């Protein structure tokens, strides 16, 4: 927990420095022809002349409430802009991770159980391609095949969305589902191959352990040995990697969102970089930092659920 707070403070500090050293906000906001005394006035009202620690404290306090000021580009509140775009990115990332897990784990299990089967060899070769092709190329290829040539799926946007509270979801419309297929595959493909290879190598490792040998020696069925005993033991590293990857999926959604004009925070970030829209960039940075920290916490909790050894250690540590 302490670590999580420290990480967030560090991220906030970087975002804060960006604010202060990349361009003069007054110059950017006020334009060239503002008289000098009014500039001084503006600096005061904005609190820009306060000592750095004070300003940093203020930045953190505001950020904690989701306030990052106004966008230089659109003059909308940055918090609102991000919040509007966040559902698109989270839905895309979620589907991408599901695609990666639902396809990657069974493929990994199969190729771990039957490493010499031709299907396993084929999957390993294909996964090598998945790992080495850059994301944008995969996206463009998919668009070329399924949107341009076959015309089955849309090549950009989210389709129709439905608003539930502040959350706009594409999960309730057919066009929303159609629109998310290509981007989520593009975004999830790399993770899918990663998870497949991870599950495969963990599976091969676990199948060599004494407890698997002993499980076989007790006459347990292959199903019990493979899926009850072996698979569960491969899950600990899979959870770690999936958690870490979920963070990077959200972060790397920038590329996929750009290729598919997906209206998420990644696309927003890219537009903001082009416009040197510092508040939005800073807010995005803080948001990504926050997501990473949250995901790490969830991963830690999942460990406890899966691995009883950690559970008892945790109970001891918690009692202190």
């Amino acid at each position, binding site marked *: 927990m302490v670590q999580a707070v420290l990480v967030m403070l560090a991220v906030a500090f970087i975002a804060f420095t960006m604010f202060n050293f990349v361009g003069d906000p007054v110059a950017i906001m006020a334009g060239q022809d503002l008289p000098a005394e009014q500039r001084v006035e503006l600096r005061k009202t904005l609190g820009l002349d306060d000592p750095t620690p004070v300003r940093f404290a203020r930045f953190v306090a505001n950020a904690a409430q989701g306030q990052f000021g106004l966008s230089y580009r659109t003059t909308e509140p940055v918090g609102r802009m991000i919040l509007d775009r966040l559902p698109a990115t989270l839905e895309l990332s979620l589907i991408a991770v599901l695609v990666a897990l639902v396809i990657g784990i069974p493929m990994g299990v199969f190729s771990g159980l039957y490493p010499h089967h031709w299907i396993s060899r084929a999957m390993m070769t294909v996964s090598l391609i998945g790992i080495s092709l850059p994301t944008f190329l995969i996206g463009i290829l998919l668009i070329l095949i399924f949107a341009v040539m076959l015309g089955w799926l849309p090549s950009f946007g989210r389709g129709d969305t439905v608003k539930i509270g502040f959350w706009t979801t594409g999960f309730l419309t057919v066009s929303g589902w159609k629109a998310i297929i290509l981007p989520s595959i593009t975004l999830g493909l790399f993770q899918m191959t990663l998870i497949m290879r991870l599950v495969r190598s963990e599976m091969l490792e676990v199948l060599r*352990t*004494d*407890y698997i*040998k*002993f*499980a*076989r*020696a*007790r*006459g*347990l*069925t*292959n199903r*019990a040995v493979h899926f*009850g*005993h072996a698979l*569960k*033991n491969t899950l600990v590293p899979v959870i770690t990697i999936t958690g870490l990857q979920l963070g990077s999926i959200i972060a790397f959604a920038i590329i996929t969102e750009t290729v598919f004009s997906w209206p998420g925070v990644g696309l927003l970030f890219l537009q903001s970089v082009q416009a040197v829209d510092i508040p939005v960039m800073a807010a995005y940075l803080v948001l990504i930092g926050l997501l990473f920290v949250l995901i790490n916490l969830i991963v830690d909790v999942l460990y406890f659920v*899966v*691995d*009883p*050894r950690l559970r*008892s250690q945790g109970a001891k540590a918690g009692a202190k």
Partner: protein
Amino acid sequence: MTSPKLLEVRNLRVEFPTRRGTLVAVDDVSLDIAAGEVLGVVGESGAGKSMTGAAIIGLLEPPGRIAAGEIRLEGRRIDNLPYNEMRKIRGRQIGAIFQDPLTSLNPLYKVGDQLIETILTHLPLTQAQARDRAVKLLEDVGIPSASERINHYPHQFSGGMRQRVVIALALAAEPKLIIADEPTTALDVSIQAQIITLLKRLCREHGTAVMLVTHDMGVIAETADRVAVMYAGRIAEIGPVQDVIKRPHHPYTIGLMGAIPTMTHKVERLTQIDGSMPRLNAIPKGCAFNPRCPKAFDRCYRDRPDPMPAGNSLAACWLVEEKAHV
């Protein structure tokens, strides 16, 4: 022989095909185990003891394979059964206990669940009956407050206690034979004797036969009915334990017995004979023991001896034949 044979191994050969040729890990091994009998198996590391055990229970790891010979359980051939048929024999007819109790149990499951799973795989019981049986098994292997401990995970047990759990698991479906491959080597010296005593008692009570692989001649002397001495993948000598210990015929066994200290300091390794066992790819022509044998003569470098009758035992040594002819 008066008692019917539970297990018969005939001319077993286990090979490992490798890029540099085929390694023969077990060569022409024949042995019997009667119901309820304890057969001790001794020999230096790499002699082929574990591979013999793995072949019997059908768990040789590829590329290792049975290249020749046959294995019969109560007269039924089991070395060529389909996987699922052999699986039903494992645990139910033939159980196994391995060397390291710390790694034999799945860390993610409660010991009770591992017991119940094993019981339900082989016996037609309900979940509740299986649970009662699991508690009873843990009590039998001397785990205090078994009905609570059943809900504990392996890491919550000490090494000795874990090996007791492993024994309970091996006995869960009342197999007729247990292959115990160095069941105490990984344990603290102070608890080795307890575990052996427990194993001996349980197997006597249940009438279970045991193939007990060990380095410890003291354990063999106290526990085994018969003993097989292995060397370089073959049987050097096999016979009733008192004969092999008091009247060994094979020079290798004689060397081993010289290496047994008195009963008071037991934990001797079998390494006191000069030299070491040849590697599998460099087994000498003739008798595999000839480079280390103090009594080797010309024939030993020419022909390989098969086990031949020597008193109540069988010994694979040309000296036996010489003596018989003299």
